[in-house]
Structure formats: structure tokens, C-alpha cells
């Protein structure tokens, strides 16, 4: 006959076993005197422990405990004052939450949200949100979208250089070193900017490719 382990008997004594396990161990304990005796010991220990936890130590001095806690709090505050001597911080920490402090906190939060939006949110999403807000505000939709927004990558060649646009975002890729700029596009998907470099006197022709 195989006896259950100590942990199983301990759990059985505390009534913490699952249904099937409890049936199996209980069946064994009812027939095995050794295991039954051990299970009873575990149960007795458990009951003693629960009774002990309900009582506080007799020697506990509430007055002394309160004094120690107050002293620790004061030491902590003093230490905080020692490590924060910077004038600006001191001034900042003394702001009134209902005045400048609250304003600064809101401004900081707004800045963080705006920064996060600018860094992570695609421009097209921003535009869509703006259009949706515009529609809600005015009660009618915005003006028609330019056709080119349907295409993926758009190359623009203009007097300011060459720009690549995608998902509503644009970026300048060639910034000319000359005022006299000749630009053109090729339908194979490239834009060209031609200018005379002011330093070398050479004609530079820069191409940017959409793909």
C-alpha cells in the first residue's frame, strides 16, 4: 500500500485538496491508522496556530510604538529637506496646487501627450481625426480630397526642391544650394532637381526615386 506524502496529508487536514484528491486521500486515511494519526496532528497544529494569531502579544506597548512611528516620519522629512537644497526645486515644490502647480502639471501633461502624438501617430490619422471633428463641428463634410491622396507615394518637384509624400506626410529631399533651380518629374517614378552649385560652379542634378 502506498501512503500519501506529508504535503498531501497536510493539505487534506486543512481541507485544501481538490474534490477527487480529497476523496482518494480520505479513503486511504479511513483505512490507515498511521496516516490518520499524522493527519490529526496536522489538524491540531493548524487549530493552535489560528488561535495564536487572534491574540496580540501581551508585552506590546502602543504608546512606544506610536512614538517610534512619529520619530521615523520626522527623520524622513528632515532627510528629504537635506537632499533637496536646490533653490528652483524648493520653489517649485512650494507651489500651490490650486495655482501655478496645477497649471504646470496640466501643461506638462499636454506637452507629453502632444509629443507622443507627434512621434507616433501617423499624419493620416491626425488628418482623419481633424476631418471628423470638422464634420461634427460644422455639420457637413470637409472639401474634396485631392486625387493624389489615393496613390501611395507621391513625388513633388517644385522650386523648393524635391519632396516625397506618403500618407499625407511630406519631406524635402533635395534642398538646393542655388536659387536657380530647374525641376522635372519622370513618369517612371522619379523627380529631378538641377542647379548650379555655388561653390564648385558645376551643374548638380539630384534625383529622388519613389521606389
Amino acid at each position, binding site marked *: 500500500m502506498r501512503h500519501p506524502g506529508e504535503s498531501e496529508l497536510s493539505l487534506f487536514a486543512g481541507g485544501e485538496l481538490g474534490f477527487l484528491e480529497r476523496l482518494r486521500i480520505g479513503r486511504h486515511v479511513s483505512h490507515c491508522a498511521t496516516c490518520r494519526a499524522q493527519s490529526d496532528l496536522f489538524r491540531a497544529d493548524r487549530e493552535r496556530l489560528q488561535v495564536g494569531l487572534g491574540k496580540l502579544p501581551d508585552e506590546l506597548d502602543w504608546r512606544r510604538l506610536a512614538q517610534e512611528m512619529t520619530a521615523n516620519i520626522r527623520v524622513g522629512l528632515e532627510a528629504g529637506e537635506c537632499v533637496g537644497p536646490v533653490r528652483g*526645486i524648493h520653489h*517649485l*515644490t*512650494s*507651489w500651490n*496646487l490650486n495655482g501655478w*502647480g*496645477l497649471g*504646470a*502639471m496640466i501643461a*506638462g*501633461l499636454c*506637452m507629453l501627450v502632444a*509629443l507622443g502624438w*507627434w*512621434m*507616433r501617430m501617423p499624419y493620416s490619422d491626425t488628418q482623419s481625426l481633424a476631418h471628423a471633428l470638422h464634420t461634427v463641428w460644422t455639420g457637413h463634410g470637409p472639401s474634396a480630397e*485631392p*486625387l*493624389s491622396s*489615393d*496613390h*501611395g*507615394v*507621391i*513625388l*513633388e*518637384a*517644385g*522650386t523648393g526642391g524635391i519632396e*516625397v509624400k506618403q500618407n499625407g506626410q511630406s*519631406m*524635402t*529631399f*533635395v*534642398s538646393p*544650394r542655388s536659387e536657380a*533651380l*530647374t*525641376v*522635372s*518629374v*519622370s*513618369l*517612371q*517614378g522619379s523627380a529631378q532637381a*538641377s*542647379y*548650379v552649385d555655388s561653390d*564648385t*560652379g*558645376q*551643374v*548638380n*542634378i*539630384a534625383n*529622388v*526615386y*519613389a*521606389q
Partner: protein
Amino acid sequence: MRSRAGQFAFCLAISSALALSAQTLGLQVVPRIDLPKDSPVALISADWGGSTASARGGAMIVDLHAALSLRNSTAKRVRGITLTVVAQEVTPGGKGSLSIPCLDVGPGEAFPVRLDMRLLRPLQAGGGLPAQIGLDGVLFDDLSFYGPDHLNSRHTMTVWEMEARRDRRYYKALLEKSGPTVLQNQILAVLAREPERLQVGMEVARGPATNVEPGGHDLQFAFLRFPDSPVEPSDGIAQVAGNEAREPRMDVRNRSDRPIRYLEIGWILQDQRGRDFLAGSVPARVTLAPGQRSQVHQDAAVKFPGRPGQALSITGMTGFVNNVEFSDGAVWIPSRAEIQSAGLESILGPSPEEQRLVQIYRRKGLQALIAELKKF
């Protein structure tokens, strides 16, 4: 409670400012220059001062500002060079090129290359150099070419060299026939045309659009016909909607006695006020035997960029043969007489060589221009 709120606000402001600085300030970069072992040009020096890479959103912006010095290591004179500048092959805006036509660099001579370009690469692209510079091709004075030619540089640089020879011949003949004053007046006329030439900018997008603008319609091309052109265009249409024209297609016929492998059709758009704008070029690789017909088609769109208060709409289109490459590599370009008679001077703008000559006149005067023309 109050002090904690103040500290919190202060920390937020500081961390926001730090994050903003980290995004804005770029790190200095030194791109790699890959020249083939048998390259006809050698790198003497490279100054990358001011070249930076900075993160913006999910992309890295690579700002290149370089001053390179290259040497012609062949026995031939270099007429032009094209360098590839690649931050990321597959990212839109990740690949560019810099060409310098109209050079005259003798054997063993050095020449400068100034590079000012911005490219994009994804932040997730991982390690490696932020940009690589390579050689796409070098054109020599005998019109021979060296290089992998991934960007069709051979054709493009040959066209520029042919235009340069044509324009130098024209100005030299003008000088010899009519004297310096007439040459000067002609250069001043080019300068005067610059502000007149309408450069409103143009957008190009590859691939089909996903929707169709209401009111879009097919518009017929009118063609300028050059008597010497080896290609005759006819029956061209494009879909036009407002300020956008897409999917140009036209029939072309080889009327020369030589096979043709490449051609470019210039595309001019007219707005509602009758003004002409050069929209761009429609290039096409073709196989056209003498007398054979074919159709040129590009699945792309061009558009006048929208400007506040400038509602441009396309009311007419004109096409002309810009250049043709025969199967033996020879290139045809229209003559100056053909360009003048077609009234294209003010629309096309100056050729690269004409830009260079005008710049010499502006900075150094008439005598320097005459001396430059006499070099060739």
C-alpha cells in the same frame, strides 16, 4: 501633496524637453563609399561635416552634406558622373542619385563633388551604415560609358552631353558670326526667361488610383512634330480630372532606318488661362524596327500641386519627342532650331550646359564666357 504635484510637473516638463531634444538632434554619420576595383575614378578625400542621422517617428532621416574629391584615373576625359546614394532600397525616399554632367576632367585630374541630400530609412532597418554611396556610371568624351547603369545613367548622361555639345556649338557659332554683343544679348535673354518660365511644381505618382474623380474625361494630345525626329507620335490620350492627368498613352512610329530601343516623350499641360507647364517626361523602353508602330503607356499620374488661391485645371495637352536612343546606343535630340520654331525654349528651360554657361557669365562676366566657349 503640493510639493509632489510641483515635482511631478517639473519632471514631466524636463523629460518632455529631453525626449524632444533626442528626437531633434542628429548624430553625425559617415557613409560608406563603394567604388568598384576597376573604377575610372578614385576617391581622394571625403569631408562629411554636417552629415547627420536623426530619428523622427518610425523613420531615420539621413541628412548628407558632403564634399568629395575624386580623381580621373583613366586616359580619357570624363564628361559626366552619376553616384547612387542609398539609405534603404525599398523605402520611398530611401534612394537617390547625384549626377554631374558637363564636366571636362582630364586624365589624372581631380574634381570636386558636392552632395546635399536627405534620405529616409526605417528605424527597424537595424545596424549597418545609414547610407552608402556608389557609382552608377561615368561618361567619357568619346561617349563610351563605364558602370553598372542601374539608373539608366548611360542614356541620361549621353543626352546631357549631346545637349551640351549642341548648345556650345550654337553659342560658339553665334559668337563667331555675330560677335560678343549678340552672344551677351542671347545669354541675357536666357536669364530673362527664368522668371517667366512657370515653375509651379509638379507631382507624380506611380500606379493606378483607387477612385475616379467625378467629371474626369479623356483628353487628346496635340503633338509638336520635329522634321528630323526619328519617331512620329500620334493618337495620344490621357485621363484628365481637374488638375490631374493620368495614364497617358500614345502611338509612336519609327520613321528612321535604324531600330529604336528607348524614347522619351515630353508632356506639356495647359491650364484654363492658356499657360503651358512642362509636366514631365514619358519614358518608354521599346523595340521598334524601322517603320514599325507601337504604343507607349505609363501607369502613372501627374498633378499640379494645390496652392491656396491657385485652382489650376488642365484644359489641353501637348506632346513632343524629347529624345530617342537607337539600338546601337546612338542618341537623337531635337536641334535648337526645332526647339525655337516650336516655341519650346521658355517651357523647357535651359539645358544643364546652358545653366553652367549662364552661371559663368553671371559670376565672371562676358570674357570668361567667351574663354569657356573657346575651350572646346
